C-alpha cells in the first residue's frame, strides 16, 4: 500500500472502525439511577462487601445534602449562628419558629457535610488509607457536632443520639492525623456499621428537611 493511501486509511478510520451507533442515553441512565441512587434496601451483600451498602446510602445522603444546600435561601443562617448561644433576650425578639428553622437548616447542612466526609473515607483495607484532609474536616465537623449537642437542635432524642455517635466517629477520624493505621480505619467503619450511622443520617436529613 502506498504512503498516500495509508494516510487516507488513517483519515478514514473514524468512519470505518467501530463507528458508534446513537448511544441509548435514557436506557443507560435508568440503570445508573437504579443502581446508584436507588440501591435495594435489603441487598444481602454484607458477607461479600460489608461496607458497600453504607457507602451507597451515604451517596444518596450526599445527593440529598447537595440538593438541600443548593436550595437554602440566601438569608439562611451562617455557621456563626450556632456558635452564638441564644440568649433569652434574643429569643424573645425573634420568633420561636425562626430560631427553630435556623437550627434545622444548620443541622441539615452539617449532616450533609458529615455524610460527604464519611463517603469519602477510603474503604477498609484500601492501600492509601487517608490523608490529613479527612482529619482536618473531621475536626471542624467535631466542633459543630458539639455546638449542636449543646443547642436546642439536640432536644430531639433521636437527633441527639445520632450526634453522639457522630461525635465518636469524628473523633476517630480526627485521630487518624496522628495515629493512622489500617486497624483505626477498620474500627471507624465498624462504628459506622454497628451504629447504623448512615441509615440514621439519611433519616435525619429527610426529617430535618421536612421540618418534622
Amino acid at each position: 500500500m502506498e504512503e498516500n493511501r495509508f494516510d487516507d486509511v488513517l483519515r478514514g478510520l473514524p468512519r470505518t472502525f467501530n463507528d458508534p451507533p446513537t448511544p441509548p442515553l435514557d436506557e443507560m441512565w435508568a440503570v445508573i439511577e437504579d443502581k446508584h441512587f436507588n440501591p435495594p434496601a435489603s441487598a444481602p451483600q454484607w458477607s461479600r462487601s460489608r461496607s458497600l451498602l453504607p457507602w451507597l446510602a451515604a451517596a444518596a445522603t450526599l445527593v440529598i445534602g447537595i440538593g438541600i444546600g443548593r436550595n437554602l435561601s440566601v438569608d439562611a443562617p451562617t455557621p456563626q449562628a450556632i456558635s452564638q448561644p441564644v440568649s433569652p433576650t434574643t429569643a424573645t425578639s425573634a420568633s420561636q419558629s425562626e430560631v427553630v428553622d435556623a437550627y434545622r437548616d444548620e443541622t441539615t447542612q452539617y449532616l450533609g457535610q458529615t455524610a460527604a466526609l464519611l463517603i469519602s473515607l477510603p474503604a477498609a483495607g484500601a492501600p492509601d488509607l487517608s490523608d490529613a484532609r479527612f482529619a482536618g474536616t473531621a475536626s471542624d465537623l467535631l466542633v459543630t457536632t458539639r455546638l449542636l449537642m449543646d443547642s436546642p437542635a439536640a432536644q430531639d432524642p433521636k437527633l441527639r443520639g445520632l450526634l453522639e455517635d457522630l461525635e465518636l466517629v469524628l473523633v476517630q477520624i480526627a485521630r487518624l492525623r496522628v495515629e493512622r493505621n489500617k486497624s483505626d480505619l477498620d474500627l471507624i467503619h465498624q462504628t459506622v456499621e454497628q451504629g447504623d450511622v448512615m441509615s440514621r443520617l439519611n433519616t435525619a436529613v429527610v426529617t430535618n428537611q421536612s421540618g418534622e
Partner: protein
Amino acid sequence: MAGRALYDTHAPRVYSLAYRLSGDAEKAREATQDTFIRAFSRLSQFRGDAAFSTWLHRIVVSVVSNSRRTDVRFGREVALDEAQSIAVMAPESDPDLKECIARSVERLSDAYRTTLIMHDIEGYTHAEIAEILGVPEGTSKSRLSAARAQMRQDLAAFRE
C-alpha cells in the same frame, strides 16, 4: 438532578470511546453505565486536580481494558492467530480493506490500540491521552507512531 446533567454532558463521548474500544454495543453500554456508577460513588474522592471529563475517560478506559482482558482470559476474544493472519494474508484472499483495517487495529497491543483509537479516531490530543492514561506525552506520541508503523506493515500487502 445534578447527576443527570453531568451524565448528559459527558455520556455521549464516554459511550463513543467505549464503543470504539470494545467494538460492541452491549459492552459499550455496560462500560458507560459502570463508568458513571463508579464516578458517582467516588465523586467525593475527585480532588479536582484534573478535569472531570479526564477523570471519567480514565475510568472508562480502565473499565473497557479490564473487560477485554477478561474476554481474552475466557476465550471470547478473536484468537491471536486469526488476527495475525492479516500479516500474511494474500491480497486476493480478502479484498475488503475495511475488514483488514479492523483486524490490524485489533492485533495491536492494548496500549498501542488505545492510543491509536483515542488519537486517530476519537480526536484526543496527546496531552489529553497522556493525562487520561497517566503516561508522559512523549510516550503517547511514540505509541501512536509504533501503532501506525505496525498497521502500515500489516496493510502493506493490500492492493486495491
